[in-house]
Every structure is written in structure tokens, then in C-alpha cells.
């Protein structure tokens, strides 16, 4: 039986195994997408393998729903495990990877892991680094104006903190006339594509940006489930109650490099799932065989989904005209592409 206390504190076995399953499902899904990129079934791949410990911990503690009484999520392109933890379907990411018309996020228009879920306040993920830290200002103002405990969450990478949008987010989050209930997350994987963080960033820790305002800020080991789950819980509780900002830096691995552009090959960094499984077994929360079953089930899930998606149609050429505006295109809008 599970040892109480220990490395997982008050987290119970059911929660731990739920987290484990989500982490594995996310990993298997990303590995499938990488493969689809390699075989030419999809194009560019970018995603979150290596961030599952942190991202699942985040996804499970979000107040999910539509409108300003719920959390707003301004994500970047590595939050697949967060989406799965929120309840997203594996198949939808495979749809986006294959660019089929049934891709519910972008209709086959955007790269994989560029989500958009209005029902859960997941605003459109954009490839433009750091702009989500600017739009997060707006969703956080909406949360601030609305009675209740909903907050805005924004995620991005270490490299992106060099952009002015990160500055804007910090400045606006700390406005004396309206402090914002916003959890500002930076996932530090120590690289921006090929550029090592320590060559370009003079901050000792990214969370040191909080010192300017004396704001709540912390750096954690995002490869550790227990630390991540507790830190996200604490930070969210603070934002929800105090209606103030919190800066959370999570140090994570980047297990398949930056993206398919750099080969998407497995690298030798800490694997948060392996680490977690070791502890689960050591503490008696699970047996090795149980955990292996989780992997094979996740694989079967992805296989099924993949088979299904292969039968689905690609978007039609004419569909480019859908959604230019919220209403249909005016009849005299130029659509010929010239004369």
C-alpha cells in the first residue's frame, strides 16, 4: 500500500495515478505526431514532451468553463498535456497534425498544438512568441472585473521573456489602480531553439522579474509532479483569493528538442514520467506492470484515433473564405487574387 507523507505529501493514490495516465497519454500523443511529421502525413511539429509533470498539474487545477467567471488560458504551443488534463480528446490533436477539416481547433489551417477552445476559455494559440502575454492582460482585466475567483493563466518559454510583451504583462499585472488576478507562467527549458538561456539572460532566475514589484514569484522543478502540483495549487490559490499576480517559473526538460525543424530527436534530459514512475513504484502507489498497461492503453487509444482520422477529409479550397469575418463575406469583397 501507498506510503503516506513521503515525496507526494497529501496527494492520494487516485490523483497520482490519474496524473500518471494523463502524462503518458500526452507523451504517446506527441510521439505519434512527431512520427506523422516524419512520414509526411503531417508537416511541422512542435509540442510539449518533457513538460507533462508540470502541464498536467496545471490542467487539473484550472477552473474550466466559458466566460469571465472561469479561468482564461493564454497558452503557447507546448501545452498538450494541459489540454488533455482539461479533457481534450487525443484525436483532435491528430486531426490538427493531419490538417483535416475536422480539426476542431483551426479547421486544418494551423500547426499542431495550436489550440482554441471557446467553451473552456482557451484563446487561440498563435505561433508568435510571447504575444499571449499581451492578450492575457485583457482576459485578466475581464477576470478582475468579474466577481468570483476566476483568474487568467498564461504560459510561454524562457527565451520569449526577452520580448516586450513579457514586460507589458508584468507592468499591467501590477498596476496600482487594478492589480490583475493572473498566474504568469514561464516554462524554462534553458533553450530558445538553439540558443542557451545562460548566454542571453542576465537574470539569475526568470522569477527574479518579480522583484521589481515585490510580487509573489517562485522557481520550481517542473519535472517533479509533487512539486509542480503543489506549486500550481498554491499560486492559483493566491491569485484567486488575493486578486493579484503571481510569477511562476517551472524548469522543465525539452525531450525532443525544439521542433521537427531541429529533427525532433530524443535528447538526454530528465524524463519526468520515468522519474514519476520510479517514485510511484518505490512508494507503493503502483506496480511496474500496472504502469506498463497505461502505456499500452494510451498507445491503443492513439492508434484507434489515428486510424479514424485517416478516413477524414481534408478541407476544401473554398473553405479559405470561411471565417474571414464573423458573418459571411460581403458579396463585393475581392476574392479573385488579382484581375
Amino acid at each position: 500500500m501507498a506510503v503516506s507523507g513521503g515525496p507526494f505529501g497529501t496527494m492520494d493514490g487516485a490523483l497520482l495515478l490519474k496524473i500518471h495516465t494523463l502524462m503518458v497519454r500526452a507523451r504517446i500523443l506527441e510521439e505519434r505526431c512527431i512520427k506523422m511529421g516524419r512520414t509526411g502525413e503531417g508537416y511541422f511539429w512542435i509540442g510539449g514532451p518533457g513538460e507533462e509533470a508540470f502541464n498536467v498539474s496545471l490542467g487539473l487545477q484550472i477552473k474550466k468553463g466559458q466566460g469571465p467567471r472561469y479561468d482564461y488560458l493564454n497558452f503557447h504551443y507546448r501545452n498538450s498535456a494541459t489540454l488533455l488534463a482539461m479533457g481534450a480528446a487525443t484525436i483532435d490533436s491528430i486531426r490538427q497534425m493531419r490538417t483535416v477539416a475536422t480539426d476542431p481547433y483551426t479547421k486544418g489551417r494551423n500547426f499542431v498544438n495550436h489550440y482554441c477552445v471557446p467553451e473552456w476559455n482557451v484563446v487561440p494559440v498563435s505561433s508568435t512568441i510571447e504575444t499571449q502575454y499581451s492578450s492575457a492582460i485583457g482576459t485578466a482585466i475581464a477576470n478582475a472585473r468579474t466577481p468570483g475567483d476566476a483568474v487568467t493563466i498564461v504560459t510561454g518559454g524562457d527565451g520569449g521573456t526577452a520580448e516586450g510583451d513579457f514586460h507589458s504583462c508584468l507592468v499591467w499585472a501590477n498596476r496600482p489602480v487594478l492589480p490583475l488576478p493572473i498566474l504568469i507562467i514561464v516554462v524554462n527549458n534553458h533553450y530558445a531553439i538553439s540558443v542557451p538561456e545562460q548566454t542571453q539572460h542576465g537574470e539569475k532566475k526568470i522569477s527574479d522579474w518579480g522583484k521589481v514589484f515585490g510580487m509573489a514569484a517562485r522557481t520550481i522543478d517542473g519535472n517533479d509532479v509533487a512539486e509542480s502540483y503543489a506549486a500550481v495549487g498554491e499560486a492559483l490559490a493566491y491569485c484567486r483569493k488575493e486578486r493579484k499576480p503571481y510569477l511562476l517559473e517551472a524548469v522543465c526538460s525539452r525531450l525532443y528538442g525544439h521542433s521537427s525543424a531541429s529533427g525532433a530527436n530524443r535528447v538526454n534530459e530528465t524524463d519526468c514520467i520515468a522519474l514519476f514512475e520510479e517514485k510511484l513504484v518505490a512508494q507503493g502507489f503502483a506496480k511496474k506492470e500496472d504502469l506498463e498497461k497505461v502505456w499500452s492503453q494510451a498507445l491503443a487509444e492513439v492508434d484507434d484515433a489515428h486510424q479514424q482520422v485517416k478516413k477524414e477529409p481534408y478541407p476544401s479550397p473554398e473553405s479559405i473564405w470561411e471565417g474571414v469575418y464573423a458573418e459571411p463575406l460581403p458579396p463585393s469583397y475581392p476574392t479573385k487574387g488579382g484581375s
Partner: protein
Amino acid sequence: MANMVQAIRLALHYGEENLGVREIFGEDVGPPLGGVFTATQGLRTAWNSPLDERGIVGAAMGLAWAGFRPVAEIQFVDYIFNVIDLLKLAANATWTSGGRYKTPMVVMTPTGSGIHGSIYHSHSFDSIATKLHGMKVVCPSNPLDAYGLMISAIKDDNPVLFLKPKALLRVKGEELIPGEPADEKELRAMIDAPIGDRSQWKPRWPDVKEYAVPIGQAKISKAGSGATVVTHGRMVPVALEVAKALAAAGTGDVEVVDMRSLVPYDWELIKASIKKTGRVLFLNEETEITNFGEHLFRRTVDELFYDLKVRPRLLCGKATPGIGLSPALEYATVPQKTDVERALRELIDEPA
């Protein structure tokens, strides 16, 4: 009659009371100033932002996605060039999300020259604005249209860029806004903040009514059968003045089309006018290398080549890196009345 800033203020007041506008903000937009041109004076939901255009547009996007129907201001269009990426995101969010997200927000900003504004208070923005596909772009030439376009912009479920011609902001209208007191002194006393300490001041709002100028509808400001001028914003009164003078002198019967909306634009009305007159001048303030008028010009040649009596014309700004402060420099750079006269003369006089 209300001038254009008063008209915009009244429309924003109508918007916050009746159309769900919950946040009006930007640099100096809240009290005490109420906007560098006073367009947001006295508004209940107007507030000052940090000096940060990226934060302003980012905030507007987020608020739009949350359904707050924000109206954000960029203090001068000259200072919009560090947020083109964010405007693009606002414009493409609906399309990118496969139609699932709407981005109902208004970004308003003073545009154009004519106030001795020098290099950074004289910019026009039409060609870039019309390239932010998914964004609607409007530009009024008089207070009543400003009122009606702002109400449409607020109600629209798409992002709308509302260009305010700097040089026309203090020009009074010729038509009353529905609900506006007939006496303009009374209006001023009701809604203009006093000089000096205004910490205790509150506006008394007239009971203005909904009046929408639909986005995408141009207007024939002066009918004519001899030639068409297609223009907008600050150049409308100039074109009208010249057209009326020609009519009075009996030397030309010019139709003036005020586009009001740049995108989507009223191609049906423009086309009908050009078909009727067979002669057209596109007129705007922006510089000539890649000018929005060139788009209209090209479409005219594409679709109306055989209706044209003479080749179409463009009159616009010179392709210099800026507009100089010394008046001779500005006058040599941006079309002036005499330039419009000359261009129209040539257009009319050319044998068909």
C-alpha cells in the same frame, strides 16, 4: 452642431449605456484629460492605461475574447507601428480559429495631417490598415458619420479600426445627431469639461439615440455626372469644396463619393458612379508607393475598363520618409486644394 470629437464621445456614451461597452482605455483617455483630443471626456468607463501600445492592443484583444466589447485608443496613428503584429492577431483570430472565436473590439486613432504635426503626428495608415485582413476599417469625414460609424463599430463582431481624421476633429457638423440639443452652446455646457479643475465635474448626457452608418456603405456627398472623386476622411471636405466651386462656375459636374468604410468597401456604389461618369479620381493623403487608392484603381481597370472615358487618376501624398513641419514642406507633400483642383480639371478636360 456637435464637432467630431463630441460626436465620438456621444457615440461612446451610447455604447457604454446601451451596447455593452465595458472598457474604454488608452493613454490619457481617462480623467482628467479624457483623450488628447477630448474624445473620451466624461465617459463612465474610460480609464488611463500605461504608456504601452502593446499592452493596450493586447488588453483589447483579451477583453474582446471575453465579450467586454472594448474600445481602445492609440493616441496617434503615428504610434501604431509597434503593434501591427497584434492587430494582425486580432484580425485573424476568427479565421485562425475556424470561425469559433469572435473579436469584437474597436481601436480608434487619430490619422492624417493638417495640424502642423511634423514627422510623427501626420501619418496616414490606409494601406497597412486595409491589409490586416479580418479587420474592418472605417474613417468618417463629418460628425454625424462619426457617430453612426462608431455605433456600428461597437456593434460589429469583428475588430474595427476607427480612423479619426486629426484635422477634422474640431470641425462642426451640418446635421444634428439624433437626440443632440439644437443649441451647440448647450451641448458644450453639458458634455465639455471645464477648463481648470475638473475633479468635481460630471457631464450631463443628452439622450442620444441609436443611429448606425452600416460598415461597408459609402455615401454620395455630392451627386454629379461628369466625373467621380472617390475619397474619404480629411480629403472629403476638400473634394467637396472644389466640386462645389466647379459646379458654381459651371465648369464641372463632379460626384464626390465618401467611402466611409475602407474595408469592406462599397464597391457597388463606387462602380455605379464610375460607370455613370466614365471618369474617376482616387484621392487620399497617404504616400504613393503602395497606396490603398492603387487597389481601387486596379480594380477599376479590371472591371470597368470599357466604361472608362479616360484613364483613371490617383492623387495622393508624395513618397517621402516623413511630412516636414515647416508649412511649405507639408503643403508640398500632402494634396492641397489647388492640387485637387488641378487633378479634377485635367480629368474633366481630357477628351474622351
